[in-house]
């Protein structure tokens, strides 16, 4: 949020007091080893097949053509409005709703929206709508196109996420209209070209925001059962269990974790001093910092996967098999870091959009103690969800004799991430 402070979000959360951090770390450790001993020994999660169908009226409403068209029109209209504001409005984030709309309403807002309603960006994504409209106009089938190479997996989305977080956290002036327009233009060009070549399926795997929203939606209680296309209420564990094990899933999750971690430590005065006085120049130093954070998260994960392979022996893709269990941990990081930004700058952006010139952001919902509690609770809860998800996966994949030993490296990894996340909040 360091860089956001130059435009959006002038206030940061207070550093966490060590009491909260220790309480959180202790809880995480305690729950981890409790889970190891007490949780079930045969897999319980049923992934895609689970869930209780919602009332059919609700399903009809959600699937109605009018609803879909309205959502697409809304997405497109807001995107046009933001682009026009960035093009024609004042180049000042206090008076232009554009930067706030991208960094707060879209990027942070996708987290609660996806958690509540599922993969919403798939429906709102203006690029998908543009592609759809162009295909209609040309009389082409939107889905038609060359199939995406399987090896590519989610890698384009991981790269897109990294590019966006670079813009947000590292770029020299991320809230300026020029930077945002340049990024949006490039992003649009790449993805429309990709969709033209590979069909609408391109967005499912390559669009950073769709993949991001889709991964977080795995934890939503609302899901769709692929077998009968029914909307169901399901346990987040089942949604998480159904995460497709695509190549690049690990990379995507590592970018989510690493960039949020970088956001945390880029606030600390010592890192700012390093960047400000670096002989490499600020942008290079900060870029190295961001890449280093992602690489560190990934290296720890690779180390853990290697240990799992050593212990279990026969597992072919230990890297990907457990990647889903890191999604709740990433979610905990996201909530801890962006809650205050969202509840203060979100309404402020809407006020700017409605015409108030440089409005005062609303009073924070929670006091400092409340925010600290929420931060620790989010990180610890994410940890607990991750531990449970990994446990179920390991009792499914490993023979009974090795299930406990097999999940030990993962447990250590998660504790490392969690304590790392808490210490970033202290710093």
């Amino acid at each position, binding site marked *: 949020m360091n860089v956001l*402070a*130059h435009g959006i979000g*002038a*206030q*940061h*959360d*207070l*550093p966490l007091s060590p009491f909260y951090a220790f309480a959180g770390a202790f809880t995480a450790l305690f729950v981890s080893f409790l889970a190891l001993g007490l949780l079930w020994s045969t897999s319980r999660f049923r992934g895609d097949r689970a869930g209780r169908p919602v009332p059919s009226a609700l399903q009809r409403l959600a699937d109605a053509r009018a609803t879909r068209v309205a959502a697409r029109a809304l997405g497109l209209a807001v995107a046009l409005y933001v682009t026009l504001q960035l093009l024609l409005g004042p180049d000042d984030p206090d008076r232009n709703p554009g930067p706030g709309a991208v960094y707060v309403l879209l990027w942070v807002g996708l987290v609660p929206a996806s958690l509540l309603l599922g993969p919403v960006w798939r429906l709102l994504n203006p690029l998908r709508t543009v592609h759809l409209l162009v295909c209609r106009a040309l009389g082409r089938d939107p889905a038609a196109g060359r199939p995406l190479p399987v090896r590519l997996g989610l890698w384009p989305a991981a790269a897109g996420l990294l590019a966006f977080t670079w813009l947000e956290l590292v770029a020299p002036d991320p809230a300026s209209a020029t930077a945002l327009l340049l990024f949006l233009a490039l992003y649009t060009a790449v993805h429309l070209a990709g969709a033209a070549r590979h069909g609408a399926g391109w967005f499912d795997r390559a669009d950073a925001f769709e993949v991001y929203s889709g991964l977080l939606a795995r934890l939503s209680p609302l899901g769709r059962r692929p077998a009968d296309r029914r909307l169901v209420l399901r346990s987040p564990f089942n949604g998480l269990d159904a995460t497709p094990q695509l190549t690049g899933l690990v990379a995507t999750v590592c970018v989510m974790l690493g960039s949020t971690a970088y956001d945390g430590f880029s*606030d600390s*005065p010592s890192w*700012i*001093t390093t960047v*400000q*006085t670096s002989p490499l120049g600020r942008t290079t130093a900060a870029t190295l910092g961001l890449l280093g954070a992602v690489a560190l998260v990934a290296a720890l994960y690779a180390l853990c996967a290697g240990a799992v392979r050593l212990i279990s022996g026969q597992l072919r893709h230990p890297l990907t098999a457990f990647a889903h269990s890191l999604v709740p941990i990433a979610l905990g990081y996201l909530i801890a870091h962006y809650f205050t930004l969202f509840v203060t700058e979100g309404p402020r952006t809407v006020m700017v959009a409605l015409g108030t010139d440089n409005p005062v952001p609303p009073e924070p919902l929670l*006091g*400092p103690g409340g925010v600290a509690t929420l931060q620790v609770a989010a990180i610890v809860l994410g940890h607990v969800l991750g531990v449970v998800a990994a446990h179920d996966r390991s009792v499914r994949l490993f023979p009974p004799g090795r299930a406990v030993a097999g999940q030990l490296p993962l447990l250590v990894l998660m504790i490392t991430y969690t304590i790392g996340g808490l210490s970033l909040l202290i710093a």
Partner: protein
Amino acid sequence: MKRSPMRPRAARPLRTNRPPRAARPVAAVVAVLTVGALVLGASACGGRATTHHKPGTSHEQAGGSVGRLLAADDGAGNRLRQVDAEGAPGVTVTVRPDSEDGWNVHLSVRNFTFTPDSVGGAALLGRGHARLFLDGHPLARVYGSWFHLPASLVRTAGGGTGLTARLYADDHTAWAVNSAPVQATASLAAPSTAATAPGEARPDTTVEIVVSHGRVSPDPGRTEIRKGRTVRLRVRSDRADTLHVHGYDKEARLPAGKTVTLTFTADRSGLFEVETHESDLLLTQLVVR
């Protein structure tokens, strides 16, 4: 608030006088007497109860034969003891507002020594103590040149602005020259508003920062500030720039090479960045809680 050193000293001997298991009415009487002694007579009791006075001394006023006792008193029942102007005690008083509470009173005396050990004894030339009065109401007895006057004491005395310091002999007669008591006055006027509303508009934290050749010194760090306190930033930059406190949205122009002071009250909690706009440097972070 610093406590006056006299209070514990007076309270301890009085407590030892109290019977250990007194019945309730007796305790009440003792308490009343205690309070009464504090208000009226405590001025006479400085040391321990048993060795209250040195041998040969007593509570009787006007002991000793220095100078000439006048019939007039000081307005508080103590007679004046007149001495020759030549070599007579003298006093001046200055008052400074204290940064935390009330005032610091400084008595500067000539031909005079504070003698807390022999108070109650016979009058000796050039020895004794001082008393402070606020608009005629007694405030405190002083045995040294410095005295902290808490705002609460001023309120207890009913408020006022005219502070008088008067010199007394050990036998509680007031030193006088030409039939007028030796005294000095000072005014509490200006700082009394600041003291009666503590916690307002006083710079509590000052942060000094120098920017030269794109380097910030000292290195950017965090400054902890209690919410509601006043922060003063003193910044000097070798290039013309703009100083900005995020969140509070305070800005100040920084002309090259000049120290600029920006003062504001930290009334919102959170972590706020102080930076320059042109060179885009973080100067420090303010942690307000």
